[in-house]
């Protein structure tokens, strides 16, 4: 009797297990890897079958779309992506990556590899890419010039400043006049000194100007014989950061730290920051919305629908303007690449074509404040006389159009993300020391510590 009972129990358990396995069966989905939800939002609104925001599931040509999001900190996204792509051919249908997003810092690692597909073989033609900016194509190509992906955005970056502070401190009324005052780094320093006098910071983070320097590098981080050298421009930046911290022109907060972004609010003290269109539309929440109301336990207060409540009068919406600044540069950018081993080529091609289309490009310029990767749409909007409300109705597209053609994608290596982020992490340790302890020896120590960090991750690299 007992044996029978045991058998029945066992059989039931087995049946239940089989049932669970089959019920989460291998569903064929359109699978996309990403590190944030920026593109996902655009996809849902403008490309998916549903074309509206806020739904639970979306489809493309009737097939369910699945997003896997891994945050990019410390190279975690690259690691997740590497592992998924390496096993992609044998992965289950529900896990197979069809398309993935990559950023300027590490795109060549994937574009210049067998992990991605030639986009012209999955249905894209050269004509589809005719209106795009050359550097976006170059970045997504392997060393033989085979194109592996496309970008929906172009990312020239400039100086984003508070018009009200400019007027108060410098008496400046227009972006053109402001540009005159900061057209090179020595003039930029003079403005910084004036800001300090009136109790403002020039920038909210010591690293705000980092990309302006690093993007104008004349040599890569790592040369062809695997030697790691700090580019001259990064040395220049180190000096500037050192000086700015010493003079109190900036703070030691990191680029993404709350300690910096709180300076974007109405009571904030930061005069300017640097970035492309995605930066002020996507990463300047404290400027766009203001300071969040807090509960007694320090969490953000939310309304019945789960939206964060912001304190009235704390936003600086409409007070910002954008100009080229001391040096033109570009920062970031999101590319969509076709994953080798993926089984939805037609859908990947459809998304890529959509990204480059006039319709999509116009939508993201007009509704999302983006700068698209379609020269025609950009030019049309630049001439339209419309503007971005966040920038006090300044037509930012006009500024970007002038800068976009000169962007060059060069001196990039597969080590760039770790080098750029690792360097800032190590250097800030020096900057955060008390003023009297910031000696040359301590600076050297920070650099050595950076070398050690990179060599632990990439033992093949050497230094002097």
């Amino acid at each position: 009797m007992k044996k029978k009972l045991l058998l029945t129990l066992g059989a039931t358990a087995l049946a239940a297990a089989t049932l669970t396995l089959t019920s989460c069966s291998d569903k064929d989905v359109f699978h996309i890897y990403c590190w944030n939800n920026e593109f996902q939002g655009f996809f849902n609104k403008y490309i998916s079958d549903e074309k509206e925001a806020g739904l639970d599931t979306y489809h493309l040509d009737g097939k369910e779309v699945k997003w896997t999001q891994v945050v990019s900190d410390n190279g975690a996204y690259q690691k997740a992506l590497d592992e998924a792509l390496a096993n992609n051919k044998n992965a289950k249908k529900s896990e197979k990556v069809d398309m993935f997003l990559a950023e300027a810092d590490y795109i060549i690692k994937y574009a210049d590899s067998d992990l991605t597909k030639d986009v012209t073989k999955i249905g894209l033609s050269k004509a589809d890419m005719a209106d795009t900016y050359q550097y976006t194509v170059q970045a997504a190509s392997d060393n033989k010039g085979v194109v592996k992906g496309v970008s929906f955005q172009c990312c020239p970056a400039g100086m984003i400043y508070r018009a009200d502070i400019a007027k108060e401190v410098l008496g400046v009324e227009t972006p053109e006049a402001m540009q005159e005052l900061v057209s090179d780094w020595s003039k930029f320093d003079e403005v910084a000194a004036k800001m300090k006098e009136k109790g403002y910071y020039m920038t909210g983070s010591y690293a705000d100007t980092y990309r302006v320097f690093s993007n104008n590098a004349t040599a890569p981080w790592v040369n062809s014989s695997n030697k790691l050298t700090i580019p001259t421009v990064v040395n220049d930046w180190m000096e500037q950061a050192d000086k700015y911290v010493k003079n109190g022109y900036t703070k030691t907060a990191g680029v993404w730290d709350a300690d910096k972004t709180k300076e974007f609010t109405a009571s904030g003290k930061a005069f300017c920051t640097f970035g492309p269109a995605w930066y002020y539309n996507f990463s300047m929440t404290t400027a766009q919305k203001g300071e969040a109301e807090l509960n007694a336990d320090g969490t953000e207060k939310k309304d019945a629908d789960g939206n964060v409540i912001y304190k009235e009068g704390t936003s600086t919406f409409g007070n910002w303007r954008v100009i080229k600044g001391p040096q033109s540069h570009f920062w970031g950018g999101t590319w969509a690449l076709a994953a080798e081993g993926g089984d939805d080529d037609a859908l990947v091609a459809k998304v890529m074509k959509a990204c480059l289309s006039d319709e999509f490009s116009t939508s993201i310029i007009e509704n999302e404040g983006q700068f698209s990767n379609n020269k025609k749409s950009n030019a049309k909007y630049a001439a339209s006389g419309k503007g971005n409300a966040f920038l006090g109705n300044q037509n930012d597209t006009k500024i970007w159009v002038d800068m976009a053609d000169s962007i060059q994608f060069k001196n990039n290596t597969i080590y760039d993300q770790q080098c750029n982020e690792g360097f800032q992490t190590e250097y800030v340790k020096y900057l955060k020391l008390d003023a009297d302890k910031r000696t040359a020896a301590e600076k050297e120590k920070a650099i050595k510590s950076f070398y050690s960090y990179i060599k632990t991750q990439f033992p093949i690299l050497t230094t002097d």
Partner: protein
Amino acid sequence: METIVNASEEKVPKKKKKVSYAKWGYIFVASFFIVYGIFTFFPQILTIYDSFWDYTKICGKPPVESPEFGGFINYANVFKYDADLGTYKIWKYLGNTVLMWVIGAVPQFIVSIILALLFTSSRLKLKGLGFFKSVFYMPNLIMATAFAALFLVIFDTAGPIHLMFVENGWISENFDFILNRGWSRFLVAAMNFLMWFGNTTILLMAGIQGIDESVFEAARMDGASSNRVLFDITLPLLKPIVIYVFITSMIGGLQMYDVPYVLTGKYNNLETKTIVMYINEVLRTYNYGMAGAISVVLFIVTGILSLIVFKTINGKED
């Protein structure tokens, strides 16, 4: 004994002659061994195997290429002097780990023993024991990462503690708790203390309650003072449980990872980097060989330390 077995065998029908209940014992125990084999033993063997392969040339690239056989090269690299940092990384990180464990574990044991004695004292008869036990255990219920993230927010340069300290003029605005050697180590140790003292208290209480009450009674009848009872009866009889708690705490301490990683990982703080954080760091670029070698070293160190602890505490009886 034999005759009894034979007698019972004669009575039962032939078919059921060889009923062996031992079989069920094995079957029930097997589940543990199977799970242990697949999820612990096999990966351990694999780790040792991996430690002999050289991944240097393919680090940072998608893991599609195969490594070369490297012999003991990874072990040589583990013990290599890091000229950039001016130190041996393995000893530095091991030192950090042990130091942070000690700073947290010593007060943890003292507080736990005091609390356990108070709670089990038949003279004090404290009320609301269940309540206190739950409250002390509570921090252990929170995920270590969440707990560390909370501390990170509180001690961040934009956080309330920083603000308070700056406003009182105790620190400069530039000061960062997370980057400061003393503070960051102290915070990690404090968190481990808060998370584990409740657990240790409960284990020690169980140990004390397991001691036969008649021993205490006899001592009191003979007029032994409270101190005498504590040092000559309670603590010696508590030794097995103390050894158990100490060794598990030490092994947990040597594997410290989540709390320091969440609190200080952002800054790559070398003063709070533990040995497991180091393993994770080399794993990020798929250096399975190096990670394997560090793991093996950690395994050996843990083994030796456990043995030393066991021998020292248990020594007198041998």
